[in-house]
């Protein structure tokens, strides 16, 4: 056991945990004032429920029987059996120099934020009980298998696809599930005719700041050690966020005539998403190029919902699905074995040919397809049984009053 590595993963776990309140504020600032508590509460509930489901079964399904090259784990760690303060004695996980329980905790924070990401898409119209059931089932049926396939030594890892900190597991996964839910619940009342401007952009900027900060733990923590790879991942994370802000704002400036604050915050998040799969696998100026491209592409992807007529309210598809995909594919160009020896096939630009790129395409397609289909199925069942969407009067009144009997602001 290494105290330095443990110190860093403890810190990183706290940082990623902090991201979900950050996300709550990032999203909460963007909705109307009558729905802000609805949004905050959905994110809080992800913190509440996902942790318990994770302990009970989802961690084991993701990381049980790790390295089996398969589709899902087993029940060996259910109810946190054998998850304690010692090192884990298992082949695939044997590289860990940190207490096994903090590995479980670190991964738990990912399992919390991933379903929370979805809430931006369905803002202002989900019934709270239906939401709870959805994320509970979703963690087990969607998140755990994908986490196993990619992080837990499942078949996508075996194939050779790379995902440093969750471009597939977290972002494309959440983005595809968001799309599925949005198609099921339909558009907000009044969308798109009625303007629904953000009720508090300072909250959104604060949320973006917390996300940016926490992402240091997300990406550099995924090294699971305080080493050169963690250091590189940290630098890449910050550079990509900055460059993506610039990329987004330049395109926004050209297309809309203004560089907006919401654009700055959104661009940074897009860059953080895109660098997630790449963080510990690229170096030098690559994160800046990845960020610039991701910022510009994600901005342009905002148009998708207009073109296809769906109401992805806070643009989870454009930022997380597209951003995650951009990162995963660009890794096929920029992956660099001199940064991380785990890069078996280098990227196109490093002379590694197209092999890694192909794996990235496969892993992305599998993730998106699996997540979309299963999320849609779960959502459809809930919709048919308990109903996903609040009724008209409740939507007019706002989620804060109708779901939680509260108002966000008073004198």
């Amino acid at each position: 056991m290494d105290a330095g590595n443990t110190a860093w993963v403890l810190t990183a776990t706290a940082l990623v945990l902090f991201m979900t309140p950050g996300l709550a504020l990032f999203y909460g600032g963007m909705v109307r004032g009558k729905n802000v508590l609805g949004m905050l509460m959905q994110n809080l509930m992800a913190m509440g429920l996902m942790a318990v489901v994770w302990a009970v079964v989802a961690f084991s399904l993701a990381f049980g029987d790790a390295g089996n090259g398969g589709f899902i784990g087993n029940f060996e760690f259910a109810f946190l059996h054998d998850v304690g303060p010692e090192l884990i004695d298992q082949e695939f996980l044997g590289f860990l120099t940190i207490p096994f329980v903090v590995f479980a905790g670190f991964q738990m924070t990912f399992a919390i934020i991933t379903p929370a990401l979805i809430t931006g898409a369905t803002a202002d119209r989900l019934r709270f009980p239906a939401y709870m059931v959805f994320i509970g089932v979703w963690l087990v049926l969607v998140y755990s298998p994908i986490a196993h396939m990619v992080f837990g030594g499942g078949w996508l890892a075996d194939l050779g696809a790379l995902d440093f900190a969750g471009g597939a597991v977290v972002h494309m996964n959440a983005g595809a599930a968001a799309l599925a839910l949005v198609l099921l619940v339909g558009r907000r009342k009044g969308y798109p005719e009625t303007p629904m401007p953000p009720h508090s952009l300072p909250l959104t900027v604060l949320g973006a700041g917390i996300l940016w900060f926490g992402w240091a733990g997300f990406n550099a923590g995924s090294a699971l050690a305080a080493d050169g790879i963690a250091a590189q991942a940290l630098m890449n994370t910050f550079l990509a966020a900055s460059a993506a802000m610039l990329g987004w704002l330049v395109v926004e400036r050209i297309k809309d005539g203004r560089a907006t604050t919401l654009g700055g915050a959104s661009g940074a998040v897009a860059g953080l998403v895109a660098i997630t799969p790449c963080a510990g696998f690229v170096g030098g100026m690559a994160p800046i190029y990845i960020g610039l491209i991701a910022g510009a592409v994600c901005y342009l992807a905002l148009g998708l919902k207009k073109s296809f007529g769906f109401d992805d309210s806070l643009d989870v598809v454009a930022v997380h699905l597209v951003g995650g995909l951009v990162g995963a594919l660009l890794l096929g160009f920029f992956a660099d074995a001199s940064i991380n020896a785990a890069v078996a096939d280098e990227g196109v630009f490093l002379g590694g040919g197209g092999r890694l790129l192909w794996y990235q395409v496969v892993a992305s397609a599998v993730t998106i397809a699996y997540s979309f289909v299963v999320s849609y199925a779960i959502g459809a069942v809930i919709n048919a049984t308990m109903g996903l969407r609040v009724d008209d009067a409740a939507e007019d009144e706002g989620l804060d009053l109708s779901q939680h009997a509260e108002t966000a602001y008073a004198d």
Partner: protein
Amino acid sequence: MKLITAIVKPFKLDDVKTALKDAGVAGMTVTEVQGFGRQAGHTEVYRGAEYTIDFVPKVRIEVLADVMDAERIADAIADAARTGKIGDGKIWISDVDRIVRIRTGELDADAL
């Protein structure tokens, strides 16, 4: 008795207050309002979606006054609030049957 109501630009409130004091007016009541009229609103952009906001922030000033002071007070407000640019606002005068000062029960001119 009369009630003078004025809709003016917010940044003119201080000037109007001074003018009213100079005109011997002892009190007024102010409300934040949104005005719609000839003055153009503005455009906002959020993630590529452009919104036009027609309403312009204004303040509404109410002054209760004696019949004979009403015109003078309206003029004082108009002079203080005028910038000469579109959107300077309106003033109107209307009739009031009776005014009561809550604290003392005094009526009409005594209530001011």
